[in-house]
């Protein structure tokens, strides 16, 4: 049963990832990416990493993708204004990533197969929290400073030099 679930979720993830790359409109890409994130969250649940699954949905699908959508709508990107690469470059890109896939798969050849011994409990909130606040306390606190820096940076970058320049010029 778990295996079928795994197959289903993998299929959804890969299919929507491909659609992210190949859809013409940016908004559609964002939506497909959200679907991908949800399927990956499903994978997390299969792996019994419950805390991460929820955090994944909240942070990624809830915050980051929303941010993307805001920016896209702010810049008013749509299907016609999308720049395209030449066909040769697209072909080369496809070959390249195919090669990368082959190399990654090739490097995995001959590795031993791990089978899950027993359903582990480390993904539960309580256990993960225990580890997080004892062994990894320092990175945890520093991550908050990182977020502070990102916030400040984003605000600074978003400000404009000239007054009244916060308006985005809309192409007619």
């Amino acid at each position, binding site marked *: 049963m778990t*295996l079928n679930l*795994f197959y289903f979720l*993998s299929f959804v*993830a*890969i299919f929507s*990832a*491909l659609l*992210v*790359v190949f859809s013409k409109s*940016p908004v559609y890409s*964002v939506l497909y*990416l959200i679907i*991908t994130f949800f399927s990956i969250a499903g*994978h*997390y649940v299969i*792996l019994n*990493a419950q805390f991460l699954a929820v*955090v*994944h949905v909240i*942070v*990624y699908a809830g*915050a*980051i993708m929303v*941010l*993307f959508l805001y*920016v*896209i709508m702010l*810049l008013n*990107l749509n299907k016609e*204004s999308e*720049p*395209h*690469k030449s066909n040769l470059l*697209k072909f080369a*890109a496809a070959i*390249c*990533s195919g090669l*990368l*896939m082959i190399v*990654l*798969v090739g490097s*995995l050849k001959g590795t031993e*197969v*791990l*089978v*899950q*011994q027993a359903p582990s409990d*480390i993904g539960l909130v309580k256990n*993960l929290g225990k580890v*997080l606040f004892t*062994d990894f306390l320092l990175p945890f606190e520093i*991550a908050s400073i*990182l977020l502070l*820096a*990102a*916030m400040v940076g984003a605000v600074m*970058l*978003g400000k*404009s030099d000239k007054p009244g*320049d916060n308006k985005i010029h809309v192409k007619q």
Partner: protein
Amino acid sequence: MIPIDYYLWLSAALFTIGVLGVLFRRNAIIIFMCIELMLNAVNLIMVAFSTYLNDASGQVFVFFIMAVAAAEVAVGLAILIMMYRNTQTTDINVLNRLKW
């Protein structure tokens, strides 16, 4: 149970699709999204290994990756908006001054 290499292949596939997207598209935002896709592929495999090896540090690492990814998106989009302000487009090939 599900052997680990299934997860490895899934993660490799997602990562490759992310790379494909980065190479394929010229819109900066789409490229950004594909980078997020790559990050997620890595997250997935780390959680898988953490579960299979019964080590919590994998999941903690994923936690921090998410935090960093969020920060990165915030700053990155801010830069992108600045770029749009100056060049009126999101085409990455416009920024070609970093050459000889």
